[in-house]
């Protein structure tokens, strides 16, 4: 598979053709659907992209904390491929963006070192006909729910893209000498503090660099996920994710909230 939309699988091409004729699919709840319509967008279809990626191996030094750059690149490229294929499907539909994006990684028994990276979401388009594509001319992506999308639009910001940064890091084992040296004391281990700090900051900086390329003013909903996948407890992937946003209007138009009291049980 390449980046060329002509090479989308036959079933996908057939599904997208049906969607172009007005039938739409979406995994939005009814409330999300109504709120997206309320801010002037219409769902076009459920879009997805996937990539099965061989993550390979990289030599680790037993007693040294270090970034495993090959694994970092593999984890990043695989997600990027899945995301770009999902964007491709959205572009085929003429969408302005994709909301409710979920990124998952699945492992299968048949491929020990391979993982399937999947990106799914609902493509949307502005009913006004005004383009809301991002600075790169692509449909924006976002992991925001319909409710979050509505709220964000009220604040004068618009999503530009789901941005991410990753860093696969090997945490050193402690030798007997190191362990005995501080035995019996609950003390800080500054080398470990600094190494983990560095790893998370690298992931966050890479995410911020992605947002910079989209000319975004900020990133909301940042979260840091940590997973060891299948590498053992000393190798951790730090994944930073968030939705890059751009300020479009000067004023915050969110109405003043009303206090309510529920009469339900």
């Amino acid at each position, binding site marked *: 598979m390449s980046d060329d939309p002509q090479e989308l699988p036959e079933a996908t091409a057939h599904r997208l053709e049906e969607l172009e004729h007005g039938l739409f699919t979406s995994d939005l709840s009814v409330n999300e659907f109504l709120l997206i319509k309320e801010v002037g967008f219409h769902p076009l279809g459920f879009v997805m992209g996937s990539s099965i990626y061989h993550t390979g191996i990289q030599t680790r030094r037993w007693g040294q904390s270090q970034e495993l750059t090959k694994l970092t690149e593999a984890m990043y490229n695989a997600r990027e491929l899945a995301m770009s294929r999902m964007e491709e499907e959205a572009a085929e539909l003429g969408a302005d963006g994709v909301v409710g994006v979920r990124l998952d990684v699945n492992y299968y028994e048949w491929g020990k070192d391979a993982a399937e990276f999947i990106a799914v979401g609902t493509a949307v388009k502005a009913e006004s006909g005004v383009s809301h594509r991002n600075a790169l001319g692509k449909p924006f992506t976002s992991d*925001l729910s319909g*409710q*979050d*999308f509505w*709220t*964000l639009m009220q*604040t004068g910001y618009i999503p530009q893209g789901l941005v991410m940064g990753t860093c696969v890091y090997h*945490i050193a*084992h*402690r030798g007997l000498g190191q*362990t005995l040296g*501080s*035995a*019996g*004391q*609950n*003390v*800080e*281990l*500054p080398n*470990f*503090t*600094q190494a*983990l*700090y*560095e790893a*998370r*900051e*690298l992931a*966050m*900086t890479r*995410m*911020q*660099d992605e*947002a*910079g390329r989209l000319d*975004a*003013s*900020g*990133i*909301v*909903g*940042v*979260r*840091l996920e940590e997973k060891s996948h299948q590498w053992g*407890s*000393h190798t951790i992937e730090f994944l930073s994710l*968030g939705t*890059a946003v751009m300020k479009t209007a000067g004023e*915050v138009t*969110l109405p*003043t*909230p*009303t*206090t*309510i*009291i*529920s*009469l*339900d049980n």
Partner: protein
Amino acid sequence: MPDAPADLPEAADRRLGGGPFTSGLSVPDFAACLQMGLEPVGYVQGFCVMQWGWYGMNSPYRQALGPYGGGSSGYLENYQCPHGMVSAEHRAWGQNYEQTWIEQAWGQGFADASHRMIEEATAAGAHGIVGVVDSAERLADLGVLEFHLRGTAVRVLDGAPPPGGRPWTTYLAGQRLAKLIEAGYVPVSVAAAVSSVRVWAYCITEYQLGGSAGTWGGGPGVSEVTQVASARMAARQIAREQVRSQLDGDALHGAQMIVSEDEVGEGDQEIQCLLRGNRVRRFKDFDPVPVPRPTVRLG
């Protein structure tokens, strides 16, 4: 922007030095903060990795041994066997004691991580940090505990610098923070403490926990496990006192208490009580909120 502290990693220095802002706030919290005049400037964090849970001959644990094994300071309670039996299997005495060295180490790890998070916020020119999340988790199989505090640094639009130039911190964000301010309070800092009490069971406790108190315990089959109940009460009380000592006359808002226990041997337990909340200070009289509108959900 003020100079970044020298010990920030290069990546953190670069991230906080410019480019798009980062925010860990959810969209509703982000919107509510904007409405309050709080502008996110960056996602900030602080870490501290502490060696944890191994006590050798030179440890404070060993140095602090009391007559029955308990610490020489803090809460201590002894339990004597009523049976008058002497046997290797029979636990003729028991003890509850406060593990002050664990409490102090936890306090140091939390305070260092918090201090580093505030350093990042200061470097970003923030007035405060909202939506703070803390965790203390074991890392790999290293016998270490990692303290991690993170939150979103914010600037108050047209606001004066924070007192002493030190940003305030709070677990609250969005509408929860708005309601606090509406009620006449401002956030000062997050406050948290852990208490740790070790239960060294004596014979009665051992029988009660093993379900044979009616036969060997000399009492009814269903009764309070006095030693464990006393340890749990003490753990709560110590955590409360420790947090109170951090408040310096201010109030604690939104307190959360989590009591957990680890079995460290038959009948023996380590009881930990974590108490965290928001240290807040009154700055104006309470303004009654608008009368709420009754609602009924149709779904």
